[in-house]
């Protein structure tokens, strides 16, 4: 009786340790999937090239959601792109993180009263870090990435877990805004 409880706790401890080691690797090798929906995307080239050189933080661009760790939502999201964004987010392999760029993802920005653009991204998918500004300058973008790494270190970047636990809530919001996430369109049938 006693021994089983001991091993159980031990196992948890081991899992936690492994997770911490894994966290070290994960935060030092963030592969981005750039969902370039808006103008904030223009801040990424200077962040990647020789002026700010994102690669020294271990970050790099990736081609598909399966390979990527962090989803960059750069700018406003119309209903049409939000559907694709949710689909893409669900295809990413866990653990996964989301960074929202610019005021559009925070409160809709200059599109706050449009019929086609959503206001708060965190109602539909969990966002770990917001980078404010319209557009944010490149220092803030880099700072956002470093903040994300800090959050990962202190285990606060748990958006993907929240998505699992609050899935019903997210789902409700998605349905309320979009009607239906996956739609049929004639061009892909």
């Amino acid at each position, binding site marked *: 009786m006693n021994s089983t409880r001991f091993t159980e706790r031990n196992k948890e401890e081991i899992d936690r340790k*492994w997770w911490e*080691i*894994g966290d070290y*690797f*994960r935060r*030092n*090798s963030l*592969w981005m999937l750039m969902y370039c929906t808006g103008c904030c995307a223009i801040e990424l080239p200077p962040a990647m*090239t*020789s002026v700010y*050189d994102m*690669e*020294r933080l*271990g970050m790099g*661009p*990736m*081609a*598909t*959601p*399966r*390979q*990527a*760790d962090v989803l960059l939502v750069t700018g406003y999201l119309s209903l049409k792109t939000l559907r694709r964004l949710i689909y893409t987010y669900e*295809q*990413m*392999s*866990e*653990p996964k993180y989301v960074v929202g760029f610019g005021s559009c993802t925070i409160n809709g920005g200059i599109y706050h009263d449009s019929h086609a653009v959503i206001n708060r991204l965190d109602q539909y998918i969990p966002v770990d870090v917001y980078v404010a500004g319209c557009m944010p300058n490149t220092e803030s973008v880099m700072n956002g990435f470093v903040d994300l790494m800090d959050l990962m270190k202190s285990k606060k970047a748990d958006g993907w877990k929240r998505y699992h636990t609050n899935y019903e809530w997210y789902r409700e919001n998605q349905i309320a805004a979009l009607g239906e996430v996956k739609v049929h369109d004639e061009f892909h049938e």
Partner: protein
Amino acid sequence: MIISLLIGLGVALGGFTFQTALGGVNRKIVARLQKRVGPRWYQEFIDIFKLLSKRSVSHGWIFDFGVIMALGGIIGTAMFMPVTSNILAFPSFDNFFIFVYLLAVGMLGMAMSASGSGNPLASIGVMRALTTMVAYEIPFMIVVLTIIKLAGTSSVSGIAEFQQMAGNNWFMIALPLGFVVAVLSLMGMLGKKPFETYIAPAEIASGPMVEYGGKQLGMLFIMHEITVFIEVSLFVHLFLGGAENIWMFAIKYFLVYAGLNLVSNVNGRFKIDQVVVFFYKWPLAMAVVQAIIAIYLGWVI
């Protein structure tokens, strides 16, 4: 036998470690070339271990089986690889054709797994990889035919020893045309810039790797590093006279790999049919001319 197998596994592991570290160093070199700071030299290790720690998706048993077959085939190939004339798991069985064809098992596994994912981009990537292969392999094989004919052995360490015995008369100097062909072919094998059509992240979303994430992608990264190790070491043994000790091997290996990286970073990308036409034009002609000169006429320096 067990000891030989362990040595072989040691070579594979060592090759993986060495090549992965060198890959990081080369990323640093390239970054310096572009006036950047560049990643840490152990960045590639971090990448691979991160991938192994993630939770991936699987598209059915063939998707996983192909990855295992790919990594297994490549580890098996690496186990035959001589590092120096002494560090060699299976003396006199390190036949050149084993490397070429056992490597193909790994490639086949990967191709199978990629097609098994059901993504058309993966199949297109595999198609391009195979087409590139049919382009670069023939000139390379003709050059190697010349080398085997001259050295009288198809054992890779035997070829290296032949060059050392002939007063360090490396085939790089003895067969200058063939050397140029082999460099071009090696760039094709490694998928370096002008010939990286089958990865093409912007066109076909990294081709065969499109559906991989997490541990499968991590294993394919390991596989890729070992493949690079095998191909560059083959080149070192065939053209640069092999190595007497492990330091010489490391230096030669580093020079070849870094040189190729520098060349590839100033190039654009070919279209897939341009790759085929390119290899069947000058490299093939040069390889055949080199073979005729060396075998029929006997003009070897």
